[in-house]
């Protein structure tokens, strides 16, 4: 059976172009208090005209609008979405149902501990579970995403140095394969970044690290397994080097889906770590969030965790903000609570064996893809990998085909493309992370599409460079978009 057919799909203008005076999709109950005219309550200087340009559409039009738009998206429930570094795994329906239970979803963050025991148990229990999963000593669920978590963790490291030595130190070491948020977060926390090159294996060059690791370095910020899917085998030596100089180690745990039940960062010398509930723990990515980036740390660093903390005492839960050494807050209230609900639901659904099975199958799937594709695509590093594999477009370049082309051509085969051009250390990187979700049938279909594309690149490169031909649009003009930005509709 061919993977795709070609069918019609409905176009749809902007909602503003569907607006017409007198249409409405809402109803409100009649006002039950005295209907005092607005002008008698507020001086007219406070009042606006009606919101210019706001749409007026019926409920039917609204639903059709968004339904049509929705059909233009590729999504996990449709097929494989092998974005490297993103752990685009299946988002269980049960999580969504649980997160919508009204006694959980319709609770106010300031309603007080006595009225929030259920929610506080969720937060507490998730924290405890994440500690066990990572072998760390304390967790905060406050950061709303990976980047905010990095920032939080680096601030904690800073606070730690400050309190130990009265000096936050000046630099953060970051491997050149790191995600862009790492250096951006370090700078936001007031540090300068020193890049550490990768060695021929795709790992941190420990010799260079030794050189750069001085007493001016606050921490090394690494990702393990790194963005090539490669485990930093020398992690213990690395930790020694860093700790020896009084430095700390921050681990970007975006790739924890490779390790659950197999190894724990807390046993590798990691001092601070974040993980992404929206990657490893299956909360949906939502087209760009909301995510959640819990931060975990060793005991030494726990005084610096954000406030409030969730604590348990005598079967009662409470929020504690009285932590003078804390870095403060990075988010109002308690972060993206709804994601914590989903993550806990997922952990309970999978159980201890299940979590391990997930990581095992994620790693197996990635290795299977690698093995089956290494004859067709250039493998910049032949180091063994865990949960993801990075190829380059070197072989395809010979006929002028690039990673971008391969990615676009995959669309015609009914797949979302992998992450492209990242990590930066691989030219024309094609970063493939299958996760554990897919059937062998789906993996094989992806592999066969990739193989077919490699043949097309050789025999009929135009086919690839003109892809996609079966998507709604093809190759949007990004230069034009950036040069004269149209960032909103205007009448």
């Amino acid at each position: 059976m061919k993977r795709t057919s070609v069918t019609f799909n409905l176009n749809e203008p902007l909602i503003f172009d569907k607006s017409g005076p007198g249409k409405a999709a809402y109803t409100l109950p009649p006002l039950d208090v005295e209907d005092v005219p607005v002008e008698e309550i507020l001086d007219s200087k406070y009042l606006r005209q009606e919101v210019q340009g706001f749409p007026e559409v019926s409920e039917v039009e609204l639903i059709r609008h968004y339904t049509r738009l929705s059909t233009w998206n590729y999504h996990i429930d449709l097929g494989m979405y092998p974005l490297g570094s993103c752990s685009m795994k299946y988002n269980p329906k049960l999580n969504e149902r649980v997160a919508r239970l009204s006694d959980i979803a319709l609770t106010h963050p300031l309603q007080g501990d006595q009225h929030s025991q259920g929610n506080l148990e969720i937060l507490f229990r998730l924290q405890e579970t994440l500690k066990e999963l990572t072998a760390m000593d304390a967790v905060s669920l406050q950061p709303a995403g990976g980047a905010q978590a990095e920032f939080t963790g680096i601030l904690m490291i800073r606070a730690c140095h400050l309190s130990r030595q009265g000096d936050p130190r000046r630099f953060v070491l970051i491997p050149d394969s790191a995600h862009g948020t790492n250096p951006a977060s370090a700078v936001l926390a007031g540090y300068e970044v020193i890049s550490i090159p990768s060695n021929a294996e795709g790992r941190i060059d420990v010799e260079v690290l030794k050189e750069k690791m001085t007493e001016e370095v606050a921490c090394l910020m690494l990702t393990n397994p790194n963005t090539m899917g490669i485990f930093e085998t020398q992690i213990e030596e690395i930790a020694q080097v860093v700790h020896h100089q009084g430095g700390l180690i921050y681990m970007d745990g975006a790739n924890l889906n490779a390790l659950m039940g197999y190894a724990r960062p807390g046993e590798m010398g990691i001092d601070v770590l974040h993980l992404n509930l929206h990657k490893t723990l299956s909360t949906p990515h939502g087209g760009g969030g909301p995510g959640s980036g819990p931060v975990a740390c060793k005991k030494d660093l726990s005084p610096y965790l954000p406030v409030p903390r969730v604590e348990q005492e005598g079967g009662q839960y409470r929020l504690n903000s009285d932590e003078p050494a804390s870095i403060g807050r990075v988010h109002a209230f308690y972060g993206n609570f709804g994601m914590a609900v989903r993550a806990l639901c997922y952990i309970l659904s999978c159980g201890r064996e299940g979590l391990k099975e997930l990581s095992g199958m994620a790693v197996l799937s990635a290795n299977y893809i690698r093995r089956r594709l290494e004859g067709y695509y250039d493998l910049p590093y032949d180091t063994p990998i865990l949960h993801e594999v990075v190829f380059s477009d070197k072989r395809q370049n010979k006929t002028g085909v690039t990673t971008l082309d391969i990615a676009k051509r995959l669309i015609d085969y009914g797949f979302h493309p992998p992450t492209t051009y990242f990590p930066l250390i691989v030219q024309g990187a094609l970063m493939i992370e299958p996760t554990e979700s897919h059937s062998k049938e789906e993996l094989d279909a992806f592999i066969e599409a990739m193989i077919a594309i490699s043949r097309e690149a050789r025999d009929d490169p135009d086919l690839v460079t003109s892809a996609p031909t079966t998507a709604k649009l093809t190759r949007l003009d990004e230069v034009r978009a950036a040069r004269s930005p149209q960032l909103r509709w205007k009448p």
Partner: protein
Amino acid sequence: MRYVSITPEEKRLMLQVTGVDRVEDLFGTIPENLRLRETLDIPEAASETDILKYFRALGQKNASAENFEYFLGAGAYNHFLPTLIDSVISRAEFYTCYTPYQPEISQGTLQATFEFQTLICQLTGMEVANASLYDGSSALAEGVLMAVRTTKRQKILIPQSVHPEYRRVLETYTANLDIQIEDLPFTESGCICLESLEQLLSEDHAAVVIQSPNFFGVLDEVEAASRLCERAGALSIVVVTEALSMGLLKPPGELGADIVVGEGQSLGIPLGFGGPYLGLFATKDKYKRQMPGRLVGQTVDSLGRPGFVLTLATREQHIRRQKATSNICTNQGLCALIAAVFLTTLGKGGIRELAEQNLKKAFSLRKLLGDSLAFSGATFNEMVVDCAEDPEEINRRLAGEGIIGGLPLGRYFPERSNQMLVCVTEQNSLEKIQRFAEILKGVEVPL
């Protein structure tokens, strides 16, 4: 394991291809001594039935808007959640996709985000808005960072009438960046003191931050402050925690704001115990290349057909790394979609009617409370009340009647331990408003 799709036999075949005997062998690059020998100390897998039971039981240990009437706001508001929202966002097409990096197969998210950006511009009266930040508090921090970047100045003026948690976040974000946060006094009306502002504001100031309606519910002096800012070459940053207010009140954009940051929770997002919420960020067109966060722009494809892409990415961390305008990556995409659906559902007429209902219902309580108001300034749907008794105690009494009372201000301001910040929305009934007033005043109120 229902989340894995590979049979034992297929697993065997895959292992064979991979050249190893057992899955464990694939973890060979992890040093022996780092490999976990024990099973994780996490419970065994629970069934769907048991999980639902567990979370339902947890829910029963909470108060919720299903069983209580809330007079509590303070940055999180109990508003109408149109059924349409969940119908839209429950479509897997929207909630299981990634950030729209591949525009050919992400036009749904892209167009919806473009519409969101437009709606936020219209609501705030600004020229350009981004695709969302984490929440109102970090949006404030990002706004200040942008002002510092843009003006190349390092001082910020901000009154205590900005949400205290937002201020705390701002302090955390700026702590290590050589930025000085200075206090701007406010008057008995609850508004900032304009004379003080005039005195304090100098050429060293990057921005003045004002919240309106402010944390005490009072409509603040945005226009006057913005004028002073303009004169001093500082940016005027306006924080809005109650986004619904802009359905009726003159928006910051019409009052001279340079940057509007805010919390979009009121726009269809469930209270959700504080998150996920929606950071709003809007500014003037001339500052667009200084903005943090994702932006969707309109363009054409190679065949000339109109479409949307993520744009101005050179501001962002994945291109610019340490030189990026912000470290943000994943933001609050689905919450932005919620807000877009909410605003489209209500539309021009609904947003105003809803805002008016808030104003009128809150006013009915304000009238009942009369002289116990702590500030004299105009209010929208929140107000601070002087209590004859410990507000925590009053709240206990209210809880007995199915009411979650206001915020005891002592929690943030020890000197205000006899005050309560009260919120009335369209969800509050006349009956409970009257009962609330009675209990608060400790007397029977004539109808």
